[in-house]
């Protein structure tokens, strides 16, 4: 069983991680590099004359971007292990797992890990003001755990007690509230920060959909050949 989980998670996670890395390098990295020009002081918001919205950005950096590709693959392998473990547990209890259903699993994973935390703690462009890192990480993990449990209750729960608990778990982190800074001191223009958050979520959704699809596909294949 463990072997089956490991094989499916490694294949699916590595492929999804590479796709995530490609999308991030194409769509997120230019926005990040643009923000870093403001973070480092090379460009200034409200300068006279106004800074160009289309400055020259550094190109592909083999070391920096190579590490990004590596860590993207690593993170999605980690996500894959968690996702396939949940799929395997559901399969043991009678759920059907295949590539098509895998997409739904993947989108649920995206909601739990990217979208739900982003509702109160949007993906941060470099240079934004933020609260203490430890507090934000605790809130992030708590939100992911609550949201994932809620989605499992919606997907597999029967009746209103389960669904009601799911609604409370989805709302609770945002009612409690994420740690926010005491003052806003970010030098990055809001146009860049908004685009960054939207692009980060978009690439996350695409990568998780692929992760779910591949996890379902490899799981079904491994199950058929076992």
């Amino acid at each position, binding site marked *: 069983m463990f072997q089956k989980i490991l094989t499916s998670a490694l294949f699916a996670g590595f492929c999804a991680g590479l796709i995530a890395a490609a999308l991030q390098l194409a769509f997120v990295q230019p926005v990040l590099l643009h923000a870093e020009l403001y973070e480092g002081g090379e460009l200034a918001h409200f300068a006279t004359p106004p800074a160009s919205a289309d400055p020259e950005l550094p190109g592909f950096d083999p070391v920096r971007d190579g*590490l*990004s590709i590596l860590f993207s693959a690593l993170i999605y392998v980690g996500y*894959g292990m968690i996702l396939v473990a949940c799929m*395997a547990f559901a399969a*043991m209890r009678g759920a059907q797992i295949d590539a098509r259903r895998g997409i739904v699993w993947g989108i649920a994973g995206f909601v739990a890990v990217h979208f739900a935390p982003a509702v109160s703690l949007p993906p941060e462009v470099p240079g934004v003001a933020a609260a203490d*890192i430890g507090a934000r*990480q605790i809130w*992030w993990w708590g939100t992911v755990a609550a949201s994932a449990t809620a989605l499992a209750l919606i997907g597999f729960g029967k009746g209103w007690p389960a669904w009601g608990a799911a609604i409370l778990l989805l709302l609770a982190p945002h009612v409690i509230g994420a740690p926010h800074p005491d003052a806003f001191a970010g030098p990055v223009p809001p146009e860049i920060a908004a685009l960054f958050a939207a692009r980060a979520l978009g690439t996350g959704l695409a990568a998780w959909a692929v992760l779910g699809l591949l996890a379902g596909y490899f799981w079904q294949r491994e199950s058929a050949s076992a």
Partner: protein
Amino acid sequence: MSTLAQSTVATTVLPFVAAMLIGLGIVTLAGHVQAAALHDAAHDVRHATGFPCH
């Protein structure tokens, strides 16, 4: 039938827990640990993946 199902759950729950813990370990290491070398190497991905970074 339910007894059989329960004992199956008890004896086979270990692989799920092990896989889950390895996955959580990888995500923690790559996404959250603040050690300087790890942080710098994973910096762009952490931002792009929506983890709290700095």
